[in-house]
């Protein structure tokens, strides 16, 4: 009983410190924004433009796919990369489910006056005074926020699905090729994710949680698939070498989607959901 109370109080105290640290880190990183239009526009370009943001990761993935010095080396790399792609899909699923369960708006939304339901009472949330970047898109979004346009996606920022997805892919590349993996991880951390924090779209805690999901799921899936389905993976990688033209075409499509953060796959899934609603359930 006593140990439970002590454990709970330690956990609460740890959580409080973690939240304070998270806020301080966010404000520190975000203090770079809102000072120079040029800096903010460059950060926004690399944050929002798919080619600039994820193209580098896609290039690293392709280089790792084709970069083995021997056929055995290529085979081993491809096994890792195929499992990485499967893990990335699971990571996206997990981060999406978590963000719909844990209610934590984006920091820029938390700069507004917000009341959150706690028990039977609405309690005003602590406001985070973030700096708004000066680039055109951020300013337009901020004006929309002041007019009450709050996107549903902006209300569940924990954990960051960008962090989960790109850390999973980059780590997979790192497992396949150390040098290419370091480039991918560096780009993910210092360009994609730093841009998200500078623009106050995610807190360090969102990023850390997304990365933790990615590391955990990638490790588990790499371990499980390579232990249990090693034969199947061997066959699949063998096929990619035998039918190299076809596998190149497929891997191009996959890398294209990775580089565009699965936007076309999401649109396709949205269409399927709409078809289910309108055709099968007779709502249209």
């Amino acid at each position, binding site marked *: 009983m006593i140990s439970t109370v002590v454990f709970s109080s330690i956990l609460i105290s740890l959580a409080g410190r973690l*939240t304070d640290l998270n806020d301080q880190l966010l404000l520190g990183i975000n203090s770079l924004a809102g000072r120079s239009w040029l800096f903010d526009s460059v950060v926004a370009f690399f944050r929002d433009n798919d080619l600039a943001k994820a193209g580098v990761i896609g290039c690293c993935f392709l280089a790792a796919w084709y970069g083995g010095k021997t056929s055995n080396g290529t085979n081993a790399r491809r096994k890792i990369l195929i499992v990485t792609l499967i893990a990335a899909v699971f990571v996206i699923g997990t981060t999406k489910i978590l963000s719909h369960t*844990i209610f934590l*708006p984006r920091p820029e939304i938390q700069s507004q006056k*917000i*009341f*959150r339901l706690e028990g039977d009472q609405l309690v005003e949330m602590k406001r985070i005074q973030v700096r708004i970047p000066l680039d055109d898109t951020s300013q337009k979004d901020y004006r929309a926020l002041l007019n009450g346009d*709050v996107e549903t996606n902006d209300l569940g920022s924990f954990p960051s699905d960008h962090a989960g997805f790109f850390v999973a892919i980059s780590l997979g590349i790192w497992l396949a090729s150390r040098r290419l993996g370091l480039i991918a991880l560096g780009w993910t951390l210092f360009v994609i994710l730093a841009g998200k924090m500078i623009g106050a779209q995610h807190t360090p805690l969102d990023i850390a949680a997304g990365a933790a999901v990615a590391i955990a799921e990638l490790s588990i899936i790499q371990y499980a698939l390579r232990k249990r389905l090693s034969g199947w993976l061997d066959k699949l990688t063998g096929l990619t070498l035998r039918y190299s033209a076809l596998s190149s075409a497929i891997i191009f499509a996959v890398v294209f989607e990775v580089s565009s953060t699965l936007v076309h796959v999401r649109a396709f899934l949205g269409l399927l959901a709409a078809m289910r609603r309108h055709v099968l359930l007779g709502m249209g």
Partner: protein
Amino acid sequence: MKRISIAFILCGLAFLTSCKLQKEGLVVMTDNSYKASVFATNKMGFGSPDGLIWHKGKLYIADEGGSALEVWSKADGLKTLMDSSFGISSPEKLVVDSEDNAFFTDDDVGGLWEVDARGNRRLVAGKDKGLIYTKGIALAPDGSILVGDGEQHEVFRVTKDGVVSEFLGKEYGITRPEGLVYDDKGNLYIADEEDNVLYMLDQNRKLHRLIDRRDSFSPEALCYVNGLLYIADEHFGKVYVYTPNDELKPIATFAGTFRQLQGITVDDRGDLYVAVQTDLKHKVGHIIKLSKDSTAIAQQ
């Protein structure tokens, strides 16, 4: 491996407790002069509220989830005026006239229903008179009641004797008249929740499309007080105030489990009450109060 697993689980717990793991309701104040509070929950006794009307110090509730018409006052608490034993199923919107007679629509069994000031209950006009899928309701200046029908895409005039006549036919192009209210000049505002349009029918019976923003605006309930038209937007979870001069100004955005806004009303002090259907299927609802924040006003 065991230690790593324990460390991982502890870190996970720390993350979750610091982020308040719960799927909850949020109210983002766009107008900082307001503050939000919970006025009532299911503990008061209602199910999932739809229409609301503040009248002479009492709050009338069309309880869609609880299949009842209820009234709340500070002195008496919540009282049920009519329930499903009288044949109603899904009370939608309501009005109360100057003699304290309450009228409401029902979008399941249809018709216009009344509970008079003495507590007598009756069906004023039902499906047999053409009121099939009744939604919005308004007290007309001549004492009759206007009822919007979402299936026939018309607005009907109903006298207190139960005589039904067409007020706005299909030719006006209103698909689902969900909210109806008159202003002090005799203009009728109509919220079409399906086409996402706010209409105004002027005194010359000319219909104006006041607001038509399909991608961001879907009016559900209307309330007109002291020259201001308050609008509850169900799809986008917003509360607006509209004036012809200032156009549409958002007051608050409701999110999470609070997204389904239904009724809206204003009390004698100018505080807003918004009915939220948190979970209609499980009869869960809230009434949220938006009142002027004296601290914010002082700061301004």
